């Protein structure tokens, strides 16, 4: 077994680190509610509170855009299901690799400055990243898959599944220059 696998290397985040052992730093200057770090199913990985906050914002976006996320048998509306408790529960099922991917994706979005901006800016950023990443979906697809699993727990957060559809749709809207109008007209919160 290599040293890399036995001793996890930190993943560089803007203003902090996301490691399998814990958060080493934080994002300064962003006012946030206190979000818990999220233990993974493997028990040792953590998502920074900034990363978690970003993931929650993404989940709220997926819940609303471009349509309200389907109920799939649940009674509460999609926005209510985009809760920190459900996100935490879904994140707990993530493999270490996927958790790393989620953290990396959150960092990309935080680097865009979208954490403190309106949701429409986040959608635009997601569309731009998705278009750049192409079919692979990059790390973003892991983050969206986590959101989907929070909204509809039958979905495995470790599989791209519907996340590739949602992200692919956004990428196409970005490329077809229709994303801005749709976001504005949808008026997401």
């Amino acid at each position, binding site marked *: 077994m290599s040293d890399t696998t036995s001793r996890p290397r930190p993943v560089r985040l803007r203003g902090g680190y996301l490691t399998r052992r814990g958060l080493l730093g934080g994002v300064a200057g962003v006012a946030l509610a206190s979000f818990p770090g999220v233990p993974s199913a493997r028990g040792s990985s953590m998502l920074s509170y900034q990363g978690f906050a970003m993931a929650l914002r993404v989940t709220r976006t997926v819940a609303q*855009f*471009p*349509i*309200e*996320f*389907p109920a*799939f*048998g649940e009674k509460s509306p999609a926005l209510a299901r985009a809760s920190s408790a459900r996100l935490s529960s879904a994140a707990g099922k993530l493999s270490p690799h996927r958790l790393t991917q989620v953290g990396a994706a959150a960092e990309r979005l935080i680097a865009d400055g979208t954490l403190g901006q309106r949701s429409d800016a986040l959608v635009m950023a997601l569309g731009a990243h998705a278009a750049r990443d192409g079919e692979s979906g990059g790390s973003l697809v892991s983050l969206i898959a986590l959101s*989907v699993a929070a909204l*509809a727990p*039958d*979905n*495995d957060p470790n*599989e*791209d*599944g*519907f996340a*590739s*559809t*949602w992200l*692919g*749709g*956004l990428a*196409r*809207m970005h490329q*077809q220059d*229709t994303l801005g*109008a*749709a976001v504005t*007209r*949808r008026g997401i919160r």
Partner: protein
Amino acid sequence: MSITPQVRHELTQARGQVWAKHSKDPNFTGCGIGYRRRDGVVTDEPVVIAMVVDKLPAGALSSRRLLPASVRVNGTDYGVDVVEAGPVYANGTLDRAAPQSVTSSGPVTGPYRPLVQGCGISNSGVATSSSSSPTIGPAGTLGCFVTSVSGAVVIEFLLSAGHILAGGPNLWSPSNLSNTGNIVQPAVSDQVLTGTTYQDPVAEVTYVSPLDTTPGSLANTVDWGVAQLNTDYGDTTFAKDLMPPISDGHPAVGMCVGSDAGGNSYLARMDATLQQVGLPMVGMFDVTDGTAAPQVGMHIEKVGRSSGYTSSTVDATDVIVTINYVDPVANALVPVTMSGIIWSQYFTIAGDSGAVACQGGDGQTYVLPPRAPCPLTQAVQGYYNLPSNISDNTLTNNVQAKVLTQTLAGNLLIGLVYMNQQTVISRLGNSTGPAYNQATAQAFFQQLYAKYRPVVVGLLTNPSSFTFTQAMATDYGYALNMLGQTPANGGQGILTSQEYGLGVWLMFTVAGLAQNNYTYQQIQALLDNPLFYDQACSAIASIPTITLP
């Protein structure tokens, strides 16, 4: 091999029974008298040939719609052979694009002076109140020349299909001043393409046979018009000398009037046409000189504006068929029932209307119709801006033939798609909210298309490798919501609330498939389960906007 008068008489009665019972079925195109085909081979059994748009499995049809295997007349059972044909459209073409070179001899779109038989012509245009420029008539074919002799005065007319000379169905009458009846050669659309104008009319319409548009009327047996030549005479050779002139040894059998996208061609009888015209062809004495009655199996040949020279066989006679005429002024389809029609295959395409078919040829110089996607596929591709992949037609046909037809619910789905396709086309054609909603739907359905087309191909190639996943269930639920949610909520609002409810009901089944990772075989078993089938039928029957097959 020929059908005796007695058998033909009884088959005509049998055909009448089939028509009377099924003519109102939207899947029913028409029926006639011919020989049964087995595995593509023509047998010697005379039968009623029933034409349907789609041959649906018996299980997908109610007993009311099921065509009989045979019909009894005077104690004799006559078989009914079902073939796919239709919907049928009049063979004029409003297409402004250059006709494809679908045969080595066509199209015949150049200028001809003197006029020759088989060249392209059209009405110069019909004035309308809504537009400053006249509506251009469909392009068709100059059939032949007829003549009126009164003492020393000889007048020549060109004879073609009535809807070509009139510029559309029933668009010409002596009192209709908006239609001058000016005939130009080449056809207006062909002049536009070449950039050369031949504005001077070569003939002026004298008479066009009216079409009775009363639904189900059997009064229409011909579709013809005559126009007096402005030039001295017409040349009775055919364009490019593609076939010999009409004569007693090369008699005229039919006039091309309609065809479908599947290669089926329909002709009015030439003897009946000339009897109504009341004038003989040039060089003949009596009106029926130089004509022959159609016989099943007879070889026929023609020269037409779009497909040039072709030869095929008479596959049925005494056909009753509904032909859809395009009215370019009203921009509407006018269905007209025609009777006593000849059915042939791979003989004509749009733009050949008016061409005269003569007895002769090898019977197998065919024209294949330009490939056209099915209207439903076309509507979906258009609305969602999907790739217009012609192979998708083959793919959907394979899904239908290899997957859906194998189960009860699969056959139900086939019937549902057919019975409700016009509803889908209409809804997609109407506004479904602001443009941004459609743009959003386009992006997501394009994504679904890109994601699932390979899945479907894989399913057909190797069914045992297929497993239903949670991602598929979630994609289904999301697509359903995009269709069902209102435009104000970002959706398309294409489904009614009841239809959306049906989709949600089905979601529970879909979720079960995903949770248990159903294989292809397990899914097929479920779809073939009578209990599931009954539940689906009951659920669908409760929705007034969906027509059950």
